[in-house]
């Protein structure tokens, strides 16, 4: 009896693996699609549209809220400090000769402060984007209540399918993909350096990432493939999750850059290093900006080496905006190939909230979503212009990526996820305000001749060179998956 059960188990395991092997892994390795995922996405879209209509119909009966998160919660004035305070003072009883302090100036700061308490541009970027309509995943259910029996049944079916059918399938695929990466790269590493070796290494990497993409049911649309990054360049992209690497490496081969890890990551890193050169740093080396820049420069100087993949934001952002690009990668020269990645949140939330989930639970959440659907745009290559400094260049690239991906272009530092904002920004605000009230003091003191001539620093406001001090000693421009960094504060 026991043997019978054992045989049955072995048989089902064999069947399972041969199905996976034949129908998924082999086509994936050849870059061929059987169209199953496409069909799945089409069916899913129909179901979600139906669910949306049902929910909207249900909501019409109750006076519940209409969610429009993208346009913000409150009306904000766009004027500068000078304009807004000027408007406040317009009704002030006596005329002021340009400047001077009035008690109503505080209203400006007060209103700005309260506005930022109700809705600010930065903190919302570190949590998942809110959906306009529910996509039948419990995890995205913020404001949607019980609507009808049918929606609940579909949701229940969805849970069953996602957890019992799709998740085991995907986990198996991921396992196969990663093992293949380790085995394949080790085998290729045994060969002597030659063109054949690079070709084989590319094949191994591509096939592995394709299997991993299937493991996420990823549907990726690549646009403008003529701008694909070339050897000897630096590929720069906005960062949402570790999956970005799989998404990009599905279509081309890149050299990775990051910190050396132990454990499973370390094994992957070492085997990848065997088949083609990547840039891995020891923890101590990371602190030395110049050493890092030198290694990067050496790598891109060699035109036989693959383009380096860098995420200049330095941390994961929730794919609604692009935050400040750290200037390190833009200083070394070379051609920058910008890439914009935009995920469709309807099918699964790709953002890794590292404060809330560790890597393993994040990957499990990915594998129990409906699918990952995203668009990748390759932008035309950019180089630093004559007389342009690295910060300005970085901002230029950032704007191009934000514009293409339909993301908000922010100057705020992604590091604000964990760190406090620098005092310097507050000092800028204070300086701006001081300029407004100081200029008439010159007139007044010459009239009354009471106070000595002003000796406060009344200089023109410097353009914010804040980025320089952001990277002080530690090298943060290279995003590396250091499990210690992305740990709960």
């Amino acid at each position, binding site marked *: 009896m026991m043997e019978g059960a054992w045989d049955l188990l072995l048989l089902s395991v064999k069947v399972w693996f041969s199905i996976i092997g034949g129908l998924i892994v082999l086509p994936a390795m050849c870059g061929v699609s059987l169209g199953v995922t496409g069909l799945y996405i089409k069916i899913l879209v129909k179901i979600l549209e139906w669910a949306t209509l049902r929910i909207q119909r249900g909501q019409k009966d109750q006076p519940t809220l209409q969610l429009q998160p993208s346009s913000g*919660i409150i009306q904000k004035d766009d004027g500068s400090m000078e304009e807004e305070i000027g408007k406040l003072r317009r009704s002030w009883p006596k005329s002021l000769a340009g400047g001077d*302090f009035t008690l109503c100036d505080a209203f400006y700061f007060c209103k700005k402060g309260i506005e930022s*308490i109700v809705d600010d541009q*930065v903190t919302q970027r570190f949590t998942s984007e809110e959906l306009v309509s529910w996509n039948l995943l419990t995890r995205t259910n913020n404001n949607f209540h019980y609507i009808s029996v049918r929606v609940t049944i579909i949701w229940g079916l969805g849970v069953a399918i996602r957890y019992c059918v799709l998740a085991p399938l995907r986990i198996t695929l991921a396992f196969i993909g990663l093992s293949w990466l380790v085995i394949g790269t080790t085998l290729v590493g045994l060969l002597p350096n030659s063109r054949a070796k690079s070709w084989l290494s590319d094949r191994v990497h591509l096939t592995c990432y394709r299997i991993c993409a299937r493991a996420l049911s990823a549907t990726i649309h690549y646009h403008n493939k003529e701008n694909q990054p070339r050897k000897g360049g630096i590929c720069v992209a906005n960062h949402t999750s570790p999956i970005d690497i799989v998404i990009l490496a599905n279509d081309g081969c890149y050299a990775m850059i990051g910190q050396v890890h132990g454990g499973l990551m370390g094994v992957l890193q070492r085997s990848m290093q065997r088949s083609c050169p990547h840039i891995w740093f020891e923890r101590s080396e990371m602190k030395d900006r110049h050493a890092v820049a030198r290694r990067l420069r050496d790598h891109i100087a060699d035109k036989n080496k693959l383009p380096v993949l860098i995420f200049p934001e330095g941390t994961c952002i929730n794919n609604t905006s692009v935050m400040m690009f750290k200037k390190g990668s833009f200083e070394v020269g070379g051609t920058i190939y910008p890439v914009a990645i935009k995920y469709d949140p309807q099918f699964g939330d790709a953002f890794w909230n590292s404060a809330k989930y560790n890597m393993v639970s994040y990957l499990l959440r990915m594998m129990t979503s409906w699918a990952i659907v995203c668009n990748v745009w390759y932008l035309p290559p950019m180089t630093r212009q004559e007389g342009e400094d690295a910060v300005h260049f970085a901002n230029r690239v950032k704007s191009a990526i934000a514009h293409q991906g339909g993301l908000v272009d922010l100057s705020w530092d992604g590091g604000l996820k964990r760190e*406090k*904002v620098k005092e310097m*920004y507050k000092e800028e605000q*204070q300086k701006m*305000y001081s300029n407004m009230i100081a200029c008439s*003091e010159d007139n007044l003191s010459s009239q009354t001749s009471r106070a000595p001539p002003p000796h406060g620093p009344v200089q023109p406001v410097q353009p914010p060179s804040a980025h320089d001090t952001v990277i002080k000693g530690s090298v943060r421009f290279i995003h590396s998956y250091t499990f210690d960094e992305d740990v709960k504060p």
Partner: protein
Amino acid sequence: PLWCDKVLLRASRRVEIAYFSHSQITRLYSRFHSLDKGENGALSREDFQRIPELAINPLGDRIINAFFPEGEDQVNFRGFMRTLAHFRPVEDNEKSKGHDASEPLNSRNNKLLFAFRLYDLDRDDKISRDELLQVLRMMVGVNISDEQLGSIADRTIQEADTNGDMSISFSEFIKVLEKVDVEQKMSIRFLH
């Protein structure tokens, strides 16, 4: 969970709820919840300081202080809404009336009182020269000298002070700001 608290909220009949519509309360509660990193149903001063745009505001600390009643370190959702209710636009309809006959929180006078308290550090209902200097120092940082700041403070008090006690009382504050469009400038409009 989030929806439980909302059920409780709907059941209560507090004054603050008269100032916001149902959807606005839900939005504010989401916001409160996202700021509440400790997940204990109350915000501390650190929770507010985590908002970068507020942290760089020269009067940020004074604004944060306005949320916390005397001597307390935590503000719950009710207190949060109560403070924000001051910034509701002044409208003619009855929605913004309080349950008793007292003035609504978002009246012109109460908005002015909110601003007055930004200056009145020790809450003794008078803005002294020292307090004005301290708040001015917050707003200008290191960019203006002590003497200059002192003369600005003196001039401001001179303009507003009518009873000669070298400080600004609330009624003097109201008088000197009577022409300023407080209703517009101290109001936050929701989009929905």
